[in-house]
């Protein structure tokens, strides 16, 4: 109908109002107890509660208004655009990709290489600490973890809910071996990887026959077991106190980053003392580790073992009847994934200088898995984007003081991290059900890579 222009059809508006009110009611019921009521301890240490009707009202309003806008305006707009596209006969797939799109990876890599210096230039030494450490290193650790888990979940299709266990093994391997025996980071990094891989195999054996939900439960339990061992084996791990004063990584044994040391990095280069140089060094270390993970993943995917992983995810019976040994295939997937988790763990330990079981709770596994799923199960680029969005997003949250204007001065955005994390996941999954990069890149072609029409290589969306 010609009347249905930008402002929307009366029907659409009516529907939007109804949906908006409904969303408001749902939000009210959902948040009534969580947000509307707050418990706290008074001076006598008694638990009492007070109401927060204002905050609750804001929550309800935000839900209602966003639903109203999305039904009344955003969705009609998107539909119109799709329709126009379909009418103009341009297939989405054959569209020319922009320069940025085609060279995305190169641009991203160059950006990462200059990132620490860029931040030094723009915000200076003190400001850079935040950008290099909180954003750069933090995100890259998750990229690496997610890429490691991707081998197990994305490629081999083995749902692992306890991946953080290997991260913990790596971190504690470094923390313990360096504080008890004084081994250096560069020796312990590969060792942590190997130890984690061994644990991967140890976990792999009992769960060989399990798939899907059952595997997920057992791996979840495994993650918890490792954490509980770390808490309770107090003689060695110091339990919940954790291990502190973990040695810093050195500049490949040449210079040290300890301020007091004789051959300290800053002295050797005539720089003024600042911890930012160590952070920048760590940034490049984790960047290199990430690149190693990506390189190994890409290479393995083209080798028989990588193809076997992918085939295993698709059809185990077919795999076996093609002569693939599914036992070793699964074990290598577990071991390889765990190894990268171990690398990331020992890096984490040296960066923090402190490890405790607190850092290896189930939530970490869940976040890493969420990144893999959001990224599109198997796509390295997609996963990296997801890590930037999810981890970077939660860091940005700390900065969002303007939210206090909306939600009142007592509002601390970090506390709502998980709520927003969940919201973001739902939104991404609504619009991109297969994750950011949802189609699998083929690894083999006849003779040379032909210019393949996208309609062939893209998967159907079903």
């Amino acid at each position, binding site marked *: 109908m010609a009347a249905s222009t930008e402002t929307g059809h009366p029907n659409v508006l009516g529907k939007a109002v109804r949906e908006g009110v409904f969303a408001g009611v749902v939000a009210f019921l959902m948040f009534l107890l969580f947000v509307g009521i707050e418990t706290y301890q008074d001076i006598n240490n008694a638990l009492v509660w007070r109401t927060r009707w204002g905050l609750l009202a804001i929550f309800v309003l935000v839900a209602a208004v966003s639903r109203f806008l999305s039904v009344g305006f955003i969705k009609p707009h998107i539909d119109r655009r799709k329709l126009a596209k379909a009418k103009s006969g341009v297939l989405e797939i054959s569209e020319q990709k922009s320069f940025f799109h085609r060279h995305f990876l190169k641009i991203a890599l160059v950006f990462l290489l200059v990132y620490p210096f860029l931040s030094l230039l723009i915000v200076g030494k003190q400001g850079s600490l935040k950008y290099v450490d909180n954003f750069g290193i933090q995100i890259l650790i998750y990229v690496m973890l997610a890429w490691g888990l991707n081998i197990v979940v994305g490629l081999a299709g083995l749902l692992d809910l306890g991946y953080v266990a290997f991260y913990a093994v790596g971190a504690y391997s470094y923390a313990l071996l360096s504080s008890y025996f004084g081994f250096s980071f560069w020796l312990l990094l590969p060792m942590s990887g190997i130890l984690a891989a061994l644990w991967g195999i140890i976990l792999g054996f009992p769960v060989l026959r399990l798939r899907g939900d059952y595997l997920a439960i057992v791996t979840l339990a495994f993650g918890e077991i490792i954490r509980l061992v770390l808490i309770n084996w107090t003689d060695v791990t110091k339990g919940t106190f954790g291990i502190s004063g973990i040695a810093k990584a050195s500049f490949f044994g040449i210079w040290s980053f300890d301020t007091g040391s004789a051959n300290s990095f800053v002295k050797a280069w005539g720089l003024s003392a600042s911890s930012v140089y160590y952070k920048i060094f760590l940034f490049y270390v984790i960047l290199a580790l990430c690149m190693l993970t990506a390189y190994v993943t890409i290479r393995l995917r083209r080798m*028989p073992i990588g193809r076997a992983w992918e085939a295993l995810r*698709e*059809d185990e*019976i*077919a795999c076996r009847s093609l002569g*693939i040994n599914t036992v070793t295939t699964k074990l290598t997937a577990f071991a390889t994934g765990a190894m990268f988790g171990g690398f990331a763990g020992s890096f984490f330990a040296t960066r923090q200088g402190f490890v405790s079981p607190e850092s290896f709770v189930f939530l970490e596994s869940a976040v890493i898995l969420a990144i893999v799923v959001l990224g599109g199960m198997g796509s390295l680029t997609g996963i990296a984007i997801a890590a930037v969005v999810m981890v970077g997003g939660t860091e940005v949250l700390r900065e969002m003081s303007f939210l206090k204007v909306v939600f009142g001065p007592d509002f601390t955005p970090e506390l709502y991290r998980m709520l927003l994390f969940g919201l973001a996941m739902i939104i991404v999954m609504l619009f991109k059900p297969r994750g950011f990069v949802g189609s699998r890149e083929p690894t*083999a*072609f006849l003779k040379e890579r032909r210019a393949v029409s996208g309609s062939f*290589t893209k998967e*159907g969306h079903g």
Partner: protein
Amino acid sequence: MAAESLLKVQAVETYYGNIRALAGVDVEVNKGEIVSLIGANGAGKSTLMMTICGSPQARSGQVIFDGEDITRLPTHLIARRRIAQSPEGRRIFPRMTVYENLQMGAGLDNLKYFNEDVEKIFTLFPRLKERQTQRGGTLSGGEQQMLSIGRALMARPKLLLLDEPSLGLAPLIVKGIFEAIKKLNQEEGLTVFLVEQNAFAALKLSDRAYVMVNGKVTMSGSGKELLANPEVRAAYLEGGRH
């Protein structure tokens, strides 16, 4: 033809839990033969095919392949003895391209013949060549069947097991696939053991055939004999379109 035995199934019993799916089956396939197995739904045909491949393994009895007892071997080692199966339901890898699926079939030992073999599959099934970059899961049913057979052939099998290659296909495509099987058999001496619901076509194609009822072989003979057999006609051929 001097009948040299390639596959010998002797008194095999296979169970799913407590359910006996095969109740003492004897089947023999000689080198260079096409042998077919027909029977009603649930007779145990697919179970026999899978038992030959060791998944599930026979609880009693023996499977002898090329003079070697393979009854207790794990599936992947049986496959490496060059028994290839195009299993029931095709079981191609849906997210992999046609080309990658064929690559999976080649396994490790045959990669050196890879290009040659792929060309051969593409001449046998030109449709696959056109579609080589397409995802397996988006192929039509008939194309998937061709891919499943093609993937099995990539293993350079001594024995090809086909479980219902004509399932759900248009008559013309069935004809094409059966002709391809015949051609492979005549030109390369490939030994084929196939399960078919399309009994008429299968019996016409085969040198010999077995009829299976409730986990037991009840009849066997040459294709022609069984085609003429009144019992077989009544049970599997009458009421069909022939």
